[in-house]
């Protein structure tokens, strides 16, 4: 059975992308399997784990709970879009390495998206605000403490850079 295909135009990491997709294709599957942006992870596929978090128009959302057709005309930022233009790691990504804010790495893309979105709107978050921002992201390795430290370190570094 051939499915009806729908034309979509989505800005992904600053680059306009067009495709013809079936209505049932989830945003995360499109990013990974058609655009080969495999940084975004697929965890639970029903909106619990947060591994698939991406930014939609700058706000973190779950890419497993959206269909590509719904992203038509919107901006999507994946973990690949967080790195600096030369491909080197962002301040936040670097801070995750520094504080050992990851172990197996499965949750890391989602954690980075959630915490970068936090820092974008709140450059100097409290520990409680950081914990609230990652409340929708499960990590089974770190116990979260080093992730909180990574965000605190990134906030400090970004404040210094801004001076």
């Amino acid at each position, binding site marked *: 059975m051939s499915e009806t295909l729908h034309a979509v135009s989505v800005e992904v990491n600053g680059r306009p992308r067009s495709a013809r997709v079936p209505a049932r294709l989830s945003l995360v599957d499109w990013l990974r399997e058609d655009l080969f942006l495999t940084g975004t992870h697929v965890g639970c*596929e029903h*909106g619990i784990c947060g591994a698939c978090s991406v930014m939609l128009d700058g706000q*973190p*959302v*779950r890419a497993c*709970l959206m269909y590509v057709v719904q992203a038509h005309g919107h901006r999507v930022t994946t973990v690949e879009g967080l790195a600096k233009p030369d491909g080197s790691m962002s301040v936040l990504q670097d801070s995750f390495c520094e504080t050992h804010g990851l172990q197996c790495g499965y949750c890391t893309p989602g954690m980075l998206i*959630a915490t970068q979105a936090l820092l974008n709107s709140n450059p100097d978050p409290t520990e409680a605000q950081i914990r609230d921002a990652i*409340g*929708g992201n499960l990590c089974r390795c770190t116990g979260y403490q080093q992730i909180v430290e990574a965000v605190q370190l990134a906030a400090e570094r970004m404040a210094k850079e801004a001076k």
Partner: protein
Amino acid sequence: MLATHGESAKLLAGGQSLVPMMAMRLVRPGWLVDINEIAVLKFVAVEKDVARTGACTRQCVVERDEALAARVPLLRQALKWVGHIQTRNRGTVGGSLAHADPCAELPLVAQVLGARMLLRSAKGARTLEAEKFFSGPMATSARPDECLEEIHWPAWSWRRTGSAFTEISVRHGDFAMVSAAAQVAIDGDGRCVRAAFGVGGAGGTPLAFPKIAARLVGTRLDDAAVSDAAHAAAAETQPGSDLHASAEYRRHLAGVLAARALREARERARSL
């Protein structure tokens, strides 16, 4: 679409409940009607005695709206318990109400405040009170061809009005085992002029207790009066049992949390 396809069509709002249910094959709609790009379903309008929200207004928008928080504070208080940032960025007010999970926060607020739902079909519009709208677990009285268009939240005009929302869940952001919401208004002497409260997760729909709340009017909302009302309400609940909580424990929580919400609401009213 709804008129043509009836039961086999489902409206897709934020998709934070429906899409997981589809992922688990608990529902298999023949047609999904995406309402996310319909601009007229997204607004917040605060008027004299009522605040209106479009059904497809995102939860994060409602949470951040200062004018709304000033007139219907219970909404922001409840949204603090709803899911996580990622889900509130997509999840909608109307979607949560139409999904009608008896443990969910927004349906309880609607029930306690007596919100009115504006439903529209190709044939016309009608308004239903929350009490009539919620008909059972995950069930509403909206007909298959109707779309929830607006929600009208009553705004109390007493200057000293306080409200509170509380719940117990396994983890913050999960569905509540039991939740409670309360709103009270007091006069200059501290006497209650109006009270409303209810509990979620303790029956097939969120429950409000207008008759028991009416008994609080005229009292000073002292701890004993509050406790009596909360326990009278808990005695009326018929919760179910599951892996996480027995019916007996849920009924116990209903009384404890209703009293807690009423006391917090009272303290907020007194501080004004």
